[in-house]
């Protein structure tokens, strides 16, 4: 119980520091979990991060895996609440304020102005993840790159659900490098 409390009080401040996405504070989580408390080693930490990336859902759910390791099912809930709660309340306050200011000219300008940066950052995450994913294909990087390009084209040109592309990627992976 004390361990869970230590995890939660360690994660809560990170919630509000995670500007630009939950996993920008990954290094701080590593410090808390591996270096400070020794709850798991480097490899176990990295494996959990890779799993959260691969599993469905927001990547921030990796804290749930850390919570599981420290305190079981209750740890999952505690860690997720600690990591998401403070940011949730702040965003909720902002969302309420935004609706009261609805139509204010400066807000419309600001919202439109943040779009290019948002898209640039999203494209960069795609390429970061893509680089790691293609490297994971080992001797056949071209197949990994092809899956990436074809999926991007399907999303860009059609309204189809890309779930089939992801499933196809998994099958190709098992057949070719499994």
């Amino acid at each position, binding site marked *: 119980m004390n361990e869970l409390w230590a995890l939660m009080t360690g994660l809560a401040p990170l919630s509000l520091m*995670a500007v630009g996405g939950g996993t920008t504070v990954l290094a701080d989580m590593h410090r808390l979990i591996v270096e400070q408390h020794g709850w798991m080693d480097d490899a176990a930490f990295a*494996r959990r991060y890779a799993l959260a990336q691969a599993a469905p859902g927001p990547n921030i759910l990796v804290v749930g895996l850390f919570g599981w390791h420290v305190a079981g099912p209750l740890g999952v809930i505690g860690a*997720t609440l600690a990591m998401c709660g403070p940011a949730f309340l702040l*965003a*909720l306050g902002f969302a309420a304020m935004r609706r009261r200011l609805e139509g204010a000219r400066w807000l419309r300008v600001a919202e439109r102005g943040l779009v*290019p940066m948002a898209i640039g950052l999203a494209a960069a995450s795609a390429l970061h993840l893509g680089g790691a994913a293609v490297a994971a294909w080992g001797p056949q990087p071209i197949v990994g790159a092809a899956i990436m390009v074809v999926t991007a084209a399907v999303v860009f040109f059609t309204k189809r659900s890309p779930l089939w592309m992801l499933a196809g990627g998994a099958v190709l992976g098992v057949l070719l490098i499994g």
Partner: protein
Amino acid sequence: MPTAAQLFAAYFQVGISGFGGANAWARHVVVEKRGWLTDAEYAQRLGLGQVLPGPNAMNCAIIIGHEFAGVPGSIAAVTGMFAGPLSLLCGLAALYDRYGELQTVRAALAGVAAGAAGMMLGTALKLARRSRPTWPMWAVLAAALGASMADVPIGWILLVLGPLGILTARMERA
């Protein structure tokens, strides 16, 4: 206008299918499948979600939920998005320690990750085209992409390119 229950259902779908992060799936469900927002509108909410601290996908869900159904809408969207994957992760956590090192599992994950990266890339391209950037906006977009690829800390990118982006939007209206 979607109700809190519809928001929960939509974001449940986002969470459960959101391989490789939830933002690309949120766009797919909210824009393509349900038609609640246009691409340009979604991109604006994504921008706000990135500037606020915390997970982008969650911030985005809070803003969109609140817009359609107030505080209950925000809570419904966020719990919907987290409910599925959290329970799945609990199961996976136990299995992964045992089977995560298997080559078959790794190979399948590598395939999914390549597809997920492609999905994120396609989403970014589509948002860029649909939000009709002016050329100074394209420059900010390219700078954000380049800076992030060069591992410039995210704080600096937001601090410099955020205001620059807003300036480009002001120029457009002037």
